[in-house]
């Protein structure tokens, strides 16, 4: 499977601040997905990006796929306490490795 590194591992923000997490690969990705896991919950699919330079929005969440298809980002505008959780960008392929993700804490 394709190896993807995600940064940062942890992020604490004040409510209302923006937040960004990044996924980087040394090889070209066929696609990338993002999942969210709330504390005590299970991972839930958010979105899949396939095209080079693709940008998709879900309310305050903006997802980007790099032009070279080697990196992706998830940006949250004006975080809310409901954004708390861990965000994952798993590798694709048969193995589906999720890794450590980025854990977001939002301070009210």
């Amino acid at each position: 499977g394709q190896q993807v590194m995600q940064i940062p591992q942890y992020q604490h923000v004040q409510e209302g601040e923006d937040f960004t997490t990044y996924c980087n690969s040394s090889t070209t990705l066929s696609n990338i997905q993002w999942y969210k896991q709330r504390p005590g919950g299970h991972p839930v699919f958010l979105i899949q990006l396939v095209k080079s330079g693709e940008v998709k929005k879900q309310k305050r969440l903006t997802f980007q796929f790099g032009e070279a298809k080697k990196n992706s980002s998830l940006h949250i505008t004006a975080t809310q306490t409901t954004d708390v959780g861990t965000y994952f960008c798993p590798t694709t392929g048969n193995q589906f490795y999720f890794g450590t993700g980025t854990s977001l804490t939002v301070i009210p």
Partner: protein
Amino acid sequence: NAGVTQTPKFRILKIGQSMTLQCTQDMNHNYMYWYRQDPGMGLKLIYYSVGAGITDKGEVPNGYNVSRSTTEDFPLRLELAAPSQTSVYFCAAARDLRAFFGQGTRLTVV
């Protein structure tokens, strides 16, 4: 549709005991996965299956076994439970690279 169902939700095992974590899906997805998640950590892949009769090891397969006799079911067997296997276990089914997770099984080995 129930999606992915895991049973039990909670279990306490004594060291050396064995048990099977059940996972069943009603979405007819070929790909299924077992993960473990230790407190405050990410997901580690234990085993996966690309279809009935086919299974393969993930990152952390030691101490576990799986079988996939049907598309629907993908049980995870723990033999000789150890405290290091205390974790939350998630089963997932996937199609078109989109994974659907069960609610998880919280296992404690004492």
